[in-house]
Protein backbone atom coordinates (compact mmCIF):
# COMPACT_ATOMS: atom_id res chain seq x y z
CA UNK A 1 0.00 0.00 0.00
CA UNK A 2 1.02 3.62 -0.32
CA UNK A 3 1.70 5.18 3.04
CA UNK A 4 0.24 8.67 3.14
CA UNK A 5 1.69 11.61 5.02
CA UNK A 6 -1.03 11.14 7.63
CA UNK A 7 -0.20 7.43 7.95
CA UNK A 8 3.41 8.38 8.52
CA UNK A 9 2.40 10.75 11.33
CA UNK A 10 0.26 8.00 12.86
CA UNK A 11 3.17 5.56 12.69
CA UNK A 12 5.54 8.09 14.23
CA UNK A 13 3.04 8.84 17.03
CA UNK A 14 2.48 5.16 17.90
CA UNK A 15 5.85 3.42 17.43
CA UNK A 16 6.45 4.03 21.13
CA UNK A 17 3.08 2.44 21.92
CA UNK A 18 -0.49 3.49 22.68
CA UNK A 19 -1.56 5.20 25.91
CA UNK A 20 -3.06 2.83 28.48
CA UNK A 21 -6.45 4.47 28.79
CA UNK A 22 -9.98 3.20 28.07
CA UNK A 23 -10.09 5.06 24.72
CA UNK A 24 -6.46 5.13 23.51
CA UNK A 25 -7.31 5.96 19.89
CA UNK A 26 -9.23 9.08 20.92
CA UNK A 27 -6.18 10.26 22.84
CA UNK A 28 -3.76 9.67 19.95
CA UNK A 29 -6.22 11.35 17.55
CA UNK A 30 -6.14 14.37 19.87
CA UNK A 31 -2.32 14.52 19.65
CA UNK A 32 -2.57 14.50 15.84
CA UNK A 33 -5.51 16.89 15.54
CA UNK A 34 -7.73 14.36 13.75
CA UNK A 35 -10.91 12.56 14.77
CA UNK A 36 -10.91 9.20 16.50
CA UNK A 37 -12.88 7.78 13.55
CA UNK A 38 -10.25 8.90 11.04
CA UNK A 39 -7.46 7.39 13.13
CA UNK A 40 -9.27 4.06 13.49
CA UNK A 41 -10.05 4.02 9.74
CA UNK A 42 -6.40 4.62 8.80
CA UNK A 43 -5.09 2.06 11.30
CA UNK A 44 -7.64 -0.49 10.04
CA UNK A 45 -6.49 0.13 6.45
CA UNK A 46 -2.87 -0.33 7.50
CA UNK A 47 -3.75 -3.54 9.34
CA UNK A 48 -5.63 -4.88 6.31
CA UNK A 49 -2.56 -4.12 4.15
CA UNK A 50 -0.18 -5.83 6.60
CA UNK A 51 1.67 -2.65 7.55
CA UNK A 52 0.28 -3.13 11.07
CA UNK A 53 0.47 -6.82 12.02
CA UNK A 54 -1.73 -6.36 15.09
CA UNK A 55 -2.35 -4.07 18.05
CA UNK A 56 -1.23 -6.11 21.04
CA UNK A 57 1.10 -6.34 24.00
CA UNK A 58 4.68 -7.52 23.70
CA UNK A 59 5.47 -9.86 26.58
CA UNK A 60 9.04 -9.72 27.84
CA UNK A 61 10.05 -13.34 27.36
CA UNK A 62 13.10 -12.93 29.58
CA UNK A 63 10.90 -11.79 32.49
CA UNK A 64 8.60 -14.76 31.85
CA UNK A 65 11.48 -17.21 32.12
CA UNK A 66 12.37 -17.74 28.46
CA UNK A 67 15.96 -16.61 28.98
CA UNK A 68 17.71 -18.88 26.47
CA UNK A 69 17.53 -18.51 22.71
CA UNK A 70 19.51 -19.93 19.85
CA UNK A 71 19.61 -19.25 16.13
CA UNK A 72 19.33 -22.75 14.66
CA UNK A 73 20.45 -23.14 11.05
CA UNK A 74 19.78 -26.06 8.72
CA UNK A 75 20.95 -27.28 5.32
CA UNK A 76 17.63 -28.43 3.87
CA UNK A 77 17.10 -29.93 0.41
CA UNK A 78 15.96 -27.01 -1.80
CA UNK A 79 13.00 -28.92 -3.23
CA UNK A 80 11.53 -29.43 0.26
CA UNK A 81 12.69 -26.23 1.95
CA UNK A 82 9.47 -24.21 1.57
CA UNK A 83 7.21 -27.03 2.71
CA UNK A 84 9.40 -28.00 5.70
CA UNK A 85 10.16 -24.38 6.60
CA UNK A 86 6.43 -23.74 6.98
CA UNK A 87 6.20 -26.63 9.46
CA UNK A 88 9.18 -25.33 11.46
CA UNK A 89 7.76 -21.79 11.55
CA UNK A 90 4.49 -23.10 12.95
CA UNK A 91 6.21 -24.62 16.02
CA UNK A 92 5.21 -22.67 19.13
CA UNK A 93 8.81 -22.23 20.32
CA UNK A 94 10.08 -20.71 17.02
CA UNK A 95 9.88 -16.90 16.87
CA UNK A 96 11.46 -16.22 13.46
CA UNK A 97 11.81 -18.59 10.51
CA UNK A 98 13.31 -17.73 7.12
CA UNK A 99 14.98 -19.17 4.05
CA UNK A 100 18.22 -17.35 3.22
CA UNK A 101 20.96 -17.91 0.63
CA UNK A 102 23.87 -20.24 1.36
CA UNK A 103 27.42 -18.80 1.30
CA UNK A 104 31.01 -20.03 1.04
CA UNK A 105 31.62 -22.20 4.09
CA UNK A 106 27.97 -21.73 5.13
CA UNK A 107 25.77 -24.59 3.83
CA UNK A 108 22.64 -23.57 5.75
CA UNK A 109 19.51 -22.16 4.07
CA UNK A 110 16.85 -22.44 6.82
CA UNK A 111 17.11 -20.19 9.90
CA UNK A 112 14.83 -20.75 12.93
CA UNK A 113 15.12 -18.82 16.21
CA UNK A 114 14.36 -21.15 19.16
CA UNK A 115 13.32 -19.90 22.64
CA UNK A 116 13.48 -21.94 25.85
CA UNK A 117 13.89 -21.63 29.61
CA UNK A 118 17.54 -22.74 29.41
CA UNK A 119 20.05 -24.07 26.88
CA UNK A 120 19.23 -27.71 27.72
CA UNK A 121 15.62 -27.06 26.75
CA UNK A 122 16.69 -25.23 23.58
CA UNK A 123 18.76 -28.29 22.60
CA UNK A 124 15.75 -30.57 23.18
CA UNK A 125 13.61 -28.29 20.97
CA UNK A 126 16.37 -28.26 18.36
CA UNK A 127 16.24 -32.08 18.30
CA UNK A 128 12.49 -31.83 17.65
CA UNK A 129 13.20 -29.72 14.55
CA UNK A 130 15.86 -32.23 13.43
CA UNK A 131 13.30 -35.03 13.75
CA UNK A 132 10.74 -33.02 11.78
CA UNK A 133 13.22 -32.31 8.96
CA UNK A 134 14.45 -35.92 8.85
CA UNK A 135 16.68 -36.95 5.94
CA UNK A 136 15.89 -33.74 3.99
CA UNK A 137 18.37 -32.04 6.37
CA UNK A 138 22.04 -32.69 5.62
CA UNK A 139 23.70 -30.55 8.31
CA UNK A 140 22.77 -28.17 11.11
CA UNK A 141 24.25 -25.90 13.74
CA UNK A 142 23.05 -23.52 16.44
CA UNK A 143 24.45 -20.10 17.32
CA UNK A 144 23.85 -18.69 20.78
CA UNK A 145 24.09 -14.97 21.35
CA UNK A 146 26.69 -14.09 23.95
CA UNK A 147 26.34 -10.30 23.86
CA UNK A 148 23.97 -7.66 22.46
CA UNK A 149 26.32 -5.22 20.74
CA UNK A 150 23.64 -2.81 19.51
CA UNK A 151 19.86 -2.64 19.59
CA UNK A 152 17.77 0.23 18.26
CA UNK A 153 14.06 0.65 17.65
CA UNK A 154 12.40 1.34 14.34
CA UNK A 155 13.83 4.48 12.75
CA UNK A 156 11.68 6.88 10.79
CA UNK A 157 13.14 9.61 8.65
CA UNK A 158 11.53 12.33 6.58
CA UNK A 159 9.75 10.83 3.62
CA UNK A 160 10.99 7.32 4.12
CA UNK A 161 11.49 4.66 6.72
Amino acid at each position, binding site marked *: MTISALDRRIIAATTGGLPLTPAPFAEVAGWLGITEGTLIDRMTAMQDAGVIRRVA*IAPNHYALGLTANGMSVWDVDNTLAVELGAQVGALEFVSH*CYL*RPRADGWPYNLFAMIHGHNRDEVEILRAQIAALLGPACRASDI*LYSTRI*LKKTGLRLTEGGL
Partner: protein
Amino acid sequence: MTSLRRTPLAADALDATDRAIINRMQDGLPLVSHPFTALANDLGLDEDALIARIQTMREIGAITRFGPFFDAEAMGGAFCLCAMEVPAGRFDAVMTLVNAHPEVAHNYERTHRLNMWFVLACERVAQIKQTADRIERETGLPVLLFPKEHEFFIGFRVTA
Protein backbone atom coordinates in the same frame (compact mmCIF):
# COMPACT_ATOMS: atom_id res chain seq x y z
CA MET B 1 13.59 3.16 24.94
CA THR B 2 13.62 1.84 28.48
CA SER B 3 16.14 -0.89 29.13
CA LEU B 4 14.80 -4.40 28.81
CA ARG B 5 14.65 -6.57 31.90
CA ARG B 6 16.62 -9.72 31.03
CA THR B 7 16.09 -11.73 34.22
CA PRO B 8 13.00 -13.76 35.20
CA LEU B 9 10.42 -12.26 37.56
CA ALA B 10 9.72 -14.01 40.88
CA ALA B 11 7.29 -16.91 40.43
CA ASP B 12 4.58 -15.08 42.42
CA ALA B 13 4.97 -11.74 40.63
CA LEU B 14 1.99 -12.50 38.38
CA ASP B 15 -1.31 -14.09 39.36
CA ALA B 16 -3.55 -16.25 37.17
CA THR B 17 -5.47 -13.23 35.88
CA ASP B 18 -2.26 -11.44 34.89
CA ARG B 19 -1.13 -14.55 33.03
CA ALA B 20 -4.46 -14.81 31.23
CA ILE B 21 -4.12 -11.15 30.17
CA ILE B 22 -0.64 -11.75 28.74
CA ASN B 23 -1.75 -14.88 26.92
CA ARG B 24 -4.84 -13.24 25.45
CA MET B 25 -3.35 -9.86 24.56
CA GLN B 26 -0.61 -11.23 22.31
CA ASP B 27 -3.26 -11.98 19.70
CA GLY B 28 -4.37 -8.44 19.11
CA LEU B 29 -7.16 -6.14 20.22
CA PRO B 30 -9.97 -4.86 18.01
CA LEU B 31 -9.49 -1.42 16.45
CA VAL B 32 -12.50 0.14 18.14
CA SER B 33 -13.08 3.11 20.41
CA HIS B 34 -12.87 1.01 23.61
CA PRO B 35 -10.53 -1.85 22.67
CA PHE B 36 -10.26 -3.25 26.22
CA THR B 37 -13.98 -3.70 26.90
CA ALA B 38 -14.54 -7.12 25.34
CA LEU B 39 -11.45 -8.66 26.91
CA ALA B 40 -12.32 -7.20 30.32
CA ASN B 41 -15.77 -8.80 30.08
CA ASP B 42 -14.27 -12.15 29.08
CA LEU B 43 -11.93 -12.06 32.06
CA GLY B 44 -14.61 -10.88 34.50
CA LEU B 45 -12.80 -7.62 35.20
CA ASP B 46 -13.92 -4.07 34.85
CA GLU B 47 -12.10 -2.10 32.18
CA ASP B 48 -10.18 0.11 34.63
CA ALA B 49 -8.96 -2.93 36.56
CA LEU B 50 -7.71 -4.56 33.35
CA ILE B 51 -5.87 -1.39 32.32
CA ALA B 52 -4.36 -1.03 35.80
CA ARG B 53 -3.03 -4.59 35.64
CA ILE B 54 -1.45 -3.96 32.21
CA GLN B 55 0.12 -0.77 33.59
CA THR B 56 1.57 -2.64 36.57
CA MET B 57 2.91 -5.44 34.38
CA ARG B 58 4.62 -2.88 32.19
CA GLU B 59 6.16 -1.23 35.26
CA ILE B 60 7.59 -4.51 36.58
CA GLY B 61 8.86 -5.47 33.11
CA ALA B 62 6.55 -8.41 32.34
CA ILE B 63 5.31 -6.51 29.27
CA THR B 64 7.60 -4.35 27.15
CA ARG B 65 5.02 -2.44 25.17
CA PHE B 66 1.38 -2.06 24.19
CA GLY B 67 0.53 -0.78 20.73
CA PRO B 68 0.68 -1.51 17.02
CA PHE B 69 3.30 -3.92 15.68
CA PHE B 70 4.53 -2.61 12.36
CA ASP B 71 5.93 -4.60 9.47
CA ALA B 72 8.78 -2.29 8.51
CA GLU B 73 9.19 -3.99 5.16
CA ALA B 74 5.55 -3.38 4.26
CA MET B 75 6.25 0.32 4.87
CA GLY B 76 8.91 0.21 2.15
CA GLY B 77 12.13 -0.34 4.10
CA ALA B 78 14.92 -2.73 3.11
CA PHE B 79 16.50 -5.12 5.60
CA CYS B 80 19.30 -7.66 5.50
CA LEU B 81 20.92 -9.99 8.00
CA CYS B 82 24.73 -9.83 7.73
CA ALA B 83 27.55 -11.80 9.31
CA MET B 84 31.29 -11.33 9.77
CA GLU B 85 34.17 -13.46 11.01
CA VAL B 86 36.00 -11.07 13.31
CA PRO B 87 39.39 -12.01 14.82
CA ALA B 88 39.08 -12.08 18.63
CA GLY B 89 41.83 -9.48 19.12
CA ARG B 90 40.03 -6.98 16.87
CA PHE B 91 36.48 -7.68 18.03
CA ASP B 92 35.81 -4.50 20.00
CA ALA B 93 37.46 -2.25 17.41
CA VAL B 94 35.41 -3.81 14.58
CA MET B 95 32.25 -3.60 16.70
CA THR B 96 32.82 0.14 17.11
CA LEU B 97 33.26 0.61 13.34
CA VAL B 98 30.17 -1.46 12.52
CA ASN B 99 27.91 0.07 15.18
CA ALA B 100 28.84 3.61 14.05
CA HIS B 101 26.65 3.07 10.97
CA PRO B 102 23.09 4.26 11.67
CA GLU B 103 21.90 1.56 9.23
CA VAL B 104 23.00 -1.12 11.74
CA ALA B 105 19.81 -1.77 13.71
CA HIS B 106 20.79 -4.79 15.81
CA ASN B 107 24.15 -6.40 16.35
CA TYR B 108 24.82 -9.61 18.27
CA GLU B 109 27.94 -11.53 19.20
CA ARG B 110 27.30 -15.24 18.55
CA THR B 111 29.05 -18.53 19.23
CA HIS B 112 30.43 -19.41 15.78
CA ARG B 113 33.36 -18.78 13.43
CA LEU B 114 30.98 -16.10 12.06
CA ASN B 115 30.86 -14.32 15.39
CA MET B 116 29.23 -10.96 14.57
CA TRP B 117 25.64 -10.89 13.24
CA PHE B 118 23.84 -7.65 12.51
CA VAL B 119 20.78 -6.38 10.66
CA LEU B 120 21.05 -3.50 8.18
CA ALA B 121 17.91 -1.36 7.90
CA CYS B 122 17.88 1.02 4.94
CA GLU B 123 15.33 3.05 3.04
CA ARG B 124 16.14 1.41 -0.30
CA VAL B 125 17.48 -2.00 -1.34
CA ALA B 126 20.56 -0.58 -3.12
CA GLN B 127 21.74 0.98 0.15
CA ILE B 128 22.16 -2.47 1.74
CA LYS B 129 25.04 -3.40 -0.55
CA GLN B 130 26.53 0.11 -0.35
CA THR B 131 26.57 0.00 3.45
CA ALA B 132 28.03 -3.53 3.52
CA ASP B 133 30.75 -2.41 1.07
CA ARG B 134 31.61 0.55 3.30
CA ILE B 135 31.90 -1.74 6.33
CA GLU B 136 34.18 -4.08 4.34
CA ARG B 137 36.44 -1.17 3.38
CA GLU B 138 36.59 0.22 6.90
CA THR B 139 37.29 -3.11 8.59
CA GLY B 140 39.14 -4.99 5.84
CA LEU B 141 36.88 -7.97 6.57
CA PRO B 142 34.27 -9.64 4.34
CA VAL B 143 30.58 -9.01 5.13
CA LEU B 144 28.31 -11.93 4.20
CA LEU B 145 24.77 -10.95 3.21
CA PHE B 146 21.86 -13.21 4.16
CA PRO B 147 18.76 -11.53 2.70
CA LYS B 148 15.38 -13.05 3.43
CA GLU B 149 14.27 -15.27 0.52
CA HIS B 150 11.13 -16.61 2.16
CA GLU B 151 9.44 -15.69 5.44
CA PHE B 152 7.29 -18.31 7.13
CA PHE B 153 4.18 -17.61 9.16
CA ILE B 154 5.02 -17.69 12.85
CA GLY B 155 2.85 -19.28 15.54
CA PHE B 156 5.14 -18.15 18.37
CA ARG B 157 3.41 -17.04 21.55
CA VAL B 158 4.86 -16.80 25.02
CA THR B 159 2.79 -18.76 27.53
CA ALA B 160 2.82 -16.79 30.76
